[in-house]
């Protein structure tokens, strides 16, 4: 429970994190560490507790036991918005955009963490306020340009096709300028060609924005293809950790994740 348990140089550290809902233990003393600029995968069969771990890191749930450290500072039990302020941004398994806001505003609003003027300044609308607003509008455009969303910037987010919505959600998260980006099943509902694109996109984001990425994903190909380290959950417990090559050979993983009945 003390901060010395966090390892120096590690970006995110989970220390024996447990959460119980009623009588049910959804996640049971999971420990894991993430490094700077690392691409990590979190996998496991459906219902293994991946999204629950995600929700604890992002403050949606507070762990019943254990601690979470980010940049060696405790973030356990902080509210979601406070966690985002610290530099952790996320996407959702079932896309959660601001449906009635334009694509542009979806991204613009995420820049709010970097606005220096207060709410009251939007009433007086002085020179400095307007300069900053113009600056944010420019940055929003630039970001949308990078991800080829500029052409639809005035459309309401809900009218975009599925793939664009997924991408917009990632762009919106990037606008908060995170040090760690959590992606919850970004490949869900994509065909193989789109998945290849997504893998390129994730690598590109990591290089371009120099951040760490934690990926919860079902698709083994995607996870094995891009992650440097993989953590495996089953029934709320961590059963393995290692490089893709190690995970592929790991007997517990083969048994749990790929199904015991594999016989060929």
């Amino acid at each position: 429970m003390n901060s010395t348990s966090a390892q120096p140089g590690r970006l995110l550290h989970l220390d024996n994190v447990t959460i119980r809902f009623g009588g049910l233990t959804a996640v049971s003393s999971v420990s894991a560490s993430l490094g700077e600029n690392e691409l990590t995968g979190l996998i496991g069969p459906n219902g293994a507790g991946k999204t629950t771990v995600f929700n604890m890191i992002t403050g949606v749930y507070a762990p019943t036991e254990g601690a979470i450290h980010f940049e060696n500072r405790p973030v356990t039990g902080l509210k979601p918005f406070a966690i985002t302020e610290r530099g952790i941004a996320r996407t959702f398994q079932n896309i959660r955009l601001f449906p009635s806001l334009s694509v542009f505003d979806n991204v613009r609003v995420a820049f709010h963490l970097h606005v220096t003027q207060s709410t009251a300044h939007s009433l007086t609308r002085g020179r400095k306020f307007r300069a900053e607003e113009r600056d944010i509008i420019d940055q929003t455009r630039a970001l949308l340009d990078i991800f080829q969303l500029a052409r639809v910037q005035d459309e309401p987010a809900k009218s975009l096709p599925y793939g664009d919505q997924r991408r917009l959600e990632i762009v919106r998260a990037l606008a908060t300028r995170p040090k760690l980006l959590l992606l919850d099943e970004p490949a869900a509902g994509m065909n193989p060609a789109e998945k290849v694109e997504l893998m390129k996109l994730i690598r590109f984001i990591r290089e371009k924005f120099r951040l760490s990425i934690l990926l919860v994903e079902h698709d083994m190909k995607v996870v094995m293809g891009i992650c440097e380290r993989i953590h495996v959950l089953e029934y709320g417990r961590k059963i393995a950790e290692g490089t893709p090559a190690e995970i592929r050979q790991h007997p517990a993983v083969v048994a749990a994740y790929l199904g015991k009945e594999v016989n060929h």
Partner: protein
Amino acid sequence: MLPRSQIVLLISLATAGIISAFSSRIDDYILDVVLGIGINIILAVSLNLINGFTGQFSLGHAGFMAVGAYAAGTLTTGPGKAWIAAAGVSPAVLFPFVLFAGGLAAAFVGLAVGAPSLRLKGDYLAIVTLGFGEIIKVILQNIESLGGSRGMVGIPSYTTFFWSFGAAAITIYAAWALVNSTLGRGFLAVADDEIAAEAMGLNTTRYKIIAFVTGAFFAGIAGGLYAHLKGYISPAGFDFNKSIEIVVMVILGGMGRHVGVVIAAVLLTVLSEKLRDFGDKRMIVYSALLILLMLTRPQGLFTWKSARKASPG
């Protein structure tokens, strides 16, 4: 150079001043209705900030209006009258300060109401705000020095065309300016998806409280104007039905639309006057229209564009 929005505001204020100078030529009854329109615009636009833009359903707006009305009325009629006399300035000159004080009082109550209850959502929040509105009414009924349930009489008629529409113009400007900024987009984000808004680092509680307190402030101003227009206020005048009336304006105008809500406020005030001819059938028509509206056009009558554009001005 001022931003365009502020130039528009100044022109509006000047126009209100000019029309006000000629208001003695307008028929008394019509002037009364017209000034009422200004007040209803303030009420609708301020509630729109809470219900429309921030998506927090409040059913107690009339309560904040009551606080403003009583606070302002006390300053010009009750104990405050002596202080004003002592200040030696014309009471009409002090009127904006009186209105401001009414607004502040309402904002303060808004904070006290909003801070605990904005954790609730949807119809629960609606019921709690309704409850607070009723409590405010009951408390006012029990304060004898404010006239109790008989109400407060003899409030001077300070509300002119300029004050009514000047305040309306300022309210519209403030509501527009508040949501038209990077921070202000947060209000809309809270309305759209609270969980996603939190995940983007928005302190949703803070946003809700700002919207609620600002909305209450302008409702208080409207209350002050109302008190000094009618000359008489009573707790019963700020009941649940009044809150509903304001809610209907916001819904009719299309929640979260500036222009639509203003148009709706004008139309409904006029309609309400016209329906007086129906006598006791007036409210039957009114409620039937409300149901019909929800069944046929729940998004409001005046909704055109679906996405809002960005502008720094």
